[in-house]
């Protein structure tokens, strides 16, 4: 492998890991706090991408500059969190917290199926592509390789900011501590007056918005088409399970591991590229069933 290929694989891996991590962060936050594995997370990711493409297209048609694509990504993420995440928690999940995990999985899987069809109804099955944001930031040449600033700098910077921001939010702020307290002992939280229902709703909205943000950020780099949500939920689950469910910092490292593993496979042994993330997951879980950073009775988040 020559240096150019190596650097290219490295950049691809970092950019991909950043995207997967942002989605996985929402998944692991929801699981850590609410103990629910949200299969519909993949659909929220896809809808975040579709919403960004539609909004950006509409604003560009009105004559706005391409740089407006960035605030629209944030708007799409918030819309996904509030308009979809909010009702899903409030109308469905709230009723099944004390039900068996199999039922919880089935319910979120049903939501996933419904949202997949909603996407087809709203956006059809033809692919969308909208690279205004990617082009707005231009390219950079490093180690002889020319790469987009968007993928090489912006995506990892957003991922890192979210990781540090969420860490600070949970460990230091008042609301973060109330979330951690509710995670640790829901009854004790209620007995000191914490509204656990509100904490769960807020957590789910934030988690769903992270899925939407992942989709929004992915939209300039890929074709938006049906089925992208299914690919992403499987991949982000691989990241979360490899790290240990509920492990935020761990998910960042396993996202990098899986992202790099996949991108190097693309250049070295392309036939296995799709398989590599799951191979990593299977190998890790064979040795450590609780994940790289989880422990059987570990803190949940």
């Amino acid at each position, binding site marked *: 492998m020559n240096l150019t290929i190596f650097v290219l694989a490295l950049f691809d891996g970092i950019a991909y890991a950043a995207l997967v991590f942002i989605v996985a962060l929402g998944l692991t936050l929801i699981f850590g706090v609410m103990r629910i594995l949200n299969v519909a997370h993949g659909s929220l990711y896809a809808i975040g991408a579709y919403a960004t493409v539609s909004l950006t297209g509409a604003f560009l048609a009105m004559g706005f500059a391409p740089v407006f694509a960035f605030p629209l990504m944030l708007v799409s993420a918030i819309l996904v969190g509030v308009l979809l995440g909010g009702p899903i928690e409030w109308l469905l999940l709230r009723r099944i917290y004390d039900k068996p995990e199999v039922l919880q999985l089935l319910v979120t899987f049903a939501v996933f199926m419904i949202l997949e069809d909603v996407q087809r109804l709203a956006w059809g099955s033809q692919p969308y592509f909208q690279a205004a944001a990617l082009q707005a930031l231009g390219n950079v040449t490093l180690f002889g390789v020319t790469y987009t600033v968007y993928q090489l700098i912006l995506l990892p910077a957003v991922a890192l900011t979210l990781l540090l921001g969420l860490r600070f939010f949970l460990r230091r702020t008042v609301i973060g501590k109330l979330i951690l307290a509710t995670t640790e002992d829901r009854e004790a939280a209620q007995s000191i*007056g914490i509204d656990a229902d509100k904490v769960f709703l807020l957590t789910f909205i934030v988690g769903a918005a992270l899925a939407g943000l992942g989709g929004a950020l992915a939209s300039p780099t890929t074709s938006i088409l049906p089925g992208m949500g299914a690919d992403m939920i499987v991949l982000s689950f691989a990241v979360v399970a490899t790290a240990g469910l509920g492990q935020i910092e761990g998910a960042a490292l396993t996202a990098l591991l899986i992202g790099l593993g996949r991108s190097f496979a693309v250049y070295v042994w392309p036939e296995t590229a799709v398989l590599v993330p799951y191979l990593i997951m299977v190998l890790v879980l064979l040795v450590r069933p609780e994940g790289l950073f989880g422990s059987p009775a570990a803190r949940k988040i």
Partner: protein
Amino acid sequence: MSAPLLETRNLEIRFGGVIAANDVSLTIESGRNLAIIGPNGAGKTTFLNICTGWLKPTRGQVLFEGKDITPLPPRKIVRRGVARAFQIPQLFTEHTALENLLIAVAAREGLRNPVRDLHTIPERAEMMHLLEMVNCADVADRTVVELSEGQRKLVDIAVALALRPRLLLMDEPTSGVASSQKHRIMEILVEALAQAQVTSVFVEHDMGIVEKYADEVAVWNAGNVQLRGTPAEVLEHPDVIRDVIGEVA
């Protein structure tokens, strides 16, 4: 005449065939420490659970300062001013003693300023003072897992006081603590309650504690109050000696 601090009217609750509260009507006046004694299974903890909203009675009402709180969820009853300390302290074990109090204040105040640093909230000094009141200021920065059982009990009481209740319901405040420590803990507790002007109701099995620290005693039997009076009156009553003290001894 002003309403009593807490009043229950004809409370009834059944678990299967067992009646755990059988037409319980009782009033609790402000400023007095009421001990609840009685044999196991008499419905003492059930009574506390109904008053704090953790159990809903099949019949009857709970009034706090004259207002019906029966249908409210526990968190709303806490905010009205009725706090609860459980037999096993319900502390957040991964946080420090002080953080447990700060979390309680944050919960009490609602989301007034949700993204500020927990350690910078204005009530921090007040919470340190509460920890001093329960003799735990020196362990303020230790996580709960590092505390002794006695310290956990006291921090748990401090958390309850952080909620600024007017009534505190406690389930065996000295259980699980070495007997040599029980009186020390009760002295700190009663002193802290007096300073904070909080009325208390506590379930207790140790008659020595009841005699020394309660202003009044209610004897529970078969889901209802069998007898009520001063510690001297109640503890020398032949029925109590036969049904309660005899069993404990």
